[in-house]
């Protein structure tokens, strides 16, 4: 991976660099994952963090929200959570003499949906619908969500008892799926000896504004993708469809998602054009949860295999 060079010619871009550095300070030794989560945010996608508890999923979500200056809400998914709990409810107010809508946690900018697989399919689909549409319809009224509305959902892959795994079709709603994993020895040591993360979170400086994020997203969409890169994306897609260990390959939507993520990744590297390296960097995070695999296979390994098998033509 080439060491990223970031464009320093622009104030917004500059603030983005600072935000990235700050989150990296908080999550030691997770530069790649942090960068991917930023790319996801810049590409306007939602993020699924799949990991065991205690590796910093919540911290990442918090840090992202804080560094990007986004309003933050957290919802702990449980089996008794109802859609109105997240959307909000109309309550009759006697003084006013009519129902007034009390918005739920969904009406925020960054929503952390903790342990999403513990929620019932009903509440899951309510959330996913909101993610897809950018608006919610309740009590006969359509209410728009924030233009930068982003969901970071977490789920615990080990603790499967009493959960409702997200169906494959719903997984598609997330632009990326990430695992943080254990920190390496040095990072863990620094973590142990360092200050409490919660305190650090509080002390984080706000670098970006939601308006900045809108602008950065707009810019990310204008990053050039040459025919060579499009050819490469296409060959990755078709390879996924022909691979013997893959039941259902990548959809055209997955291709668009891959390209959007690669664009954001290239922008983070300070470039105005996408290179195959960018596609490769985001490919496992974007593709692994979208391919339906044969029994006994693993999405991440298969994604890596695909990358090794598809040659990049010069």
């Amino acid at each position, binding site marked *: 991976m080439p060491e990223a060079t970031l464009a320093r010619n622009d104030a917004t871009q500059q603030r983005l660099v600072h935000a990235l550095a700050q989150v990296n300070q908080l999550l030691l030794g997770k530069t790649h994952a942090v960068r991917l989560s930023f790319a996801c945010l810049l590409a306007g996608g939602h993020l699924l963090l799949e990991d065991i508890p205690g590796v910093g999923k919540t911290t990442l979500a918090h840090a992202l929200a804080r560094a990007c200056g986004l309003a933050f809400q957290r919802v702990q998914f449980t089996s008794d959570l109802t859609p109105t709990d997240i959307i909000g409810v109309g309550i009759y107010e006697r003084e006013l003499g009519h129902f007034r809508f009390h918005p739920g946690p969904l009406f925020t900018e960054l929503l952390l949906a903790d342990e999403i697989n513990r929620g019932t399919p009903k509440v899951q689909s309510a959330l996913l619908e909101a993610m897809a549409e950018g608006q919610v319809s309740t009590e006969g009224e359509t209410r728009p969500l924030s233009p930068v509305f982003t969901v970071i959902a977490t789920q615990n892959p080990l603790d499967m008892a009493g959960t409702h795994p997200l169906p494959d079709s719903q997984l598609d709603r997330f632009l990326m799926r990430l695992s943080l994993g254990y920190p390496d020895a040095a990072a863990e040591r620094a973590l142990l000896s360092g200050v409490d993360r919660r305190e650090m979170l509080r002390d984080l400086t706000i670098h970006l504004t939601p308006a900045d994020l809108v602008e950065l997203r707009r810019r990310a969409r204008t990053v050039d993708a040459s*025919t060579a890169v499009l050819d490469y994306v296409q060959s990755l897609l078709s390879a996924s469809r022909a691979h013997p260990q893959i039941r259902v390959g990548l959809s055209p939507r997955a291709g668009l998602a891959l390209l959007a993520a690669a664009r954001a990744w290239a922008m983070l590297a300070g470039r105005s*054009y996408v290179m195959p390296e960018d596609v490769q960097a985001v490919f496992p995070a974007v593709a692994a949860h979208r391919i339906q695999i044969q029994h006994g296979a693993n999405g991440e390994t298969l994604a890596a295999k695909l990358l*090794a098998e598809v040659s*990049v033509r010069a």
Partner: protein
Amino acid sequence: MAPANRVPDQRAFALLILSAAVTLVLHAPHLPLWLPMPAALLLLLCWAFRRRGRRFPVLARYVLVLALPLAVVASYGTIFGRLPGAALAVGLLTLKLTETETLRDARIVIATSAFVLMSALLFGQSLLQTALVCVALWPLLTAAMSLEPAAGPTRALMHGSALRLMLALPVALVAFVLIPRLASPLWGAPGMQVAKTGVSARMTPGAIGQLLIDDQPAFRVGFQGPIPARPLRYFRAVVLWHFDGRSWTPGHAALPLERLIIRDRPSRYTVTLDATRQTLLPALDIPVDTAPGTFSTAARTLLAMRPIDHTLRYTLESATDYTLSPQLVPDERTLALQLPVGADPRARALAAQWRARYGGNSRAIVASALRMFRNGGFRYTLVPPPLGRQQVDDFLFRTRAGFCEHYASAFVFLMRAAGVPARVVAGYQGGYANRTAGYLLVRQSDAHAWAEVWIPGDGWVRVDPTAAVSPDRISLGATAAAQTADAPWFLSGWWIGFRNRIDVVNRLWNQAVVGFDALRQRALLTQFGLDPSRWQSVALALGGALGMALAVGLALALREPGKRGDALATGFQRLERRLTRARCARRPGEAPVAYLRRAASSLPSPAATTLMALAGRFAQLRYGGTQPPPPLAVRDWVRKAKDFRP
């Protein structure tokens, strides 16, 4: 299209100056002496003013604009005609540059340059001149392209304009073949070829001296059979009867055509004669017939109907073994014995002596004259001493040095004085036989004069007194015969040999291009079923050909860029092979740029830096932008990648 009042940039202006300078150089040989240097200086001044961002002084410009036509009139007496016109055009082009401020001005300069450049062809259409004009179009087209708003780097412009010129060639060729030609070139009008001389219908001994060192080609002869041996290669152009003591002229008497008896099979040949501005047509001794458009004089020399103002081709038959005019008509006898009254008494006395000794034996008289030339201390030279009033006496008894004209003139004088009918024949002798190309090249330096004497029973017999003095003149040629220690370099052997070889190319050019006249165009087009006299058919063919050229050009321009040979990919693959040999293979699925960077990190420093730079540039070219990369940049990268050694 940029607004017309935009100011052309520094580079565009420099290119304009360059085009004008090239035009000036091409015209320089025929411009009046006062023009080229000041014009060049003015161009330099324009450039200097422009560099400093200053304008040329208006007053100076007005003065120059007024002075130019006056100077032209002072030089030529008129502003009309080819030479004054060229001087005026070149001068005005130069002056236009002093007031070139806007884009519109610049375009006018380009159009004017193109016109003035083309007019250089009015002064000669040799292969060299045409090629020079074509090359001169290059900076001109580059200048035109540099005026466009998004003009690239100069190298790209020069490349582009060269390419465009190349692409224009087939179109020019089609237009050359198809566009109807006038019976004679438009600029073959009077005033053309004035400086060019050849053998003329007047001979003043000493006057063709200049001709003898002029090695311009006079004409070329393609023989259908073998080329005759050198001593037989006498081309008669004019027969001179009348001598006034100084000059020989054809005379004016109307004589009947001399009878000709031939004893061998005439050989057939085609003469390609360069413009002479005269009507004389050289023909090998002795033509048996005339060619279309020509007629024969009584003494069997050929004349054209009109002065020859462009290259002319004619086919003739000639016999070398013949008897000309076995009977002499009285008028002819009178003419052949004419002598100026009272001139050259010593020569007359000598002739009278011979007459007394040999009586009516003409052969003996001829022999004694030749003997005198051979043994009398005469020498052959192209730079003879000047002769006095009694020209023949002076030559025979004092200077005894001269070339063909002197000998022919003195010989005929002696013959006539001795009562033997004689006449001077002027033409060409010898020539260079180009065996490989199968033709004979006759230069102006092969001009020759000899004599014909009438001997009872034998008719007119050719006698070449020069051969008696200098047999080399006939066997080797004039320049070789005159070769002495003080011969100038352009008469040296290797130079003549070189010139003769070069002439093959010039002959092809003259035959295929310059000589492509209305007649030959008709012949060519009829072969393809086109009737050149019907403009519809020519227009159809022309339109069809141009349409086809346009279609091909469009197809080339619109060709999908991806389908073209991907030079960048090929270049990268070459680099990859080289790196693989250096034990740095690409990993499966590794992206090109990442691979190059990884390879660079395993290399020692200078190579690593180069490879990193190559990787960065490759990324920009391949992925930077959705448009295909600029070909020039790609070529540059490929070249650098080719030079890279791990």
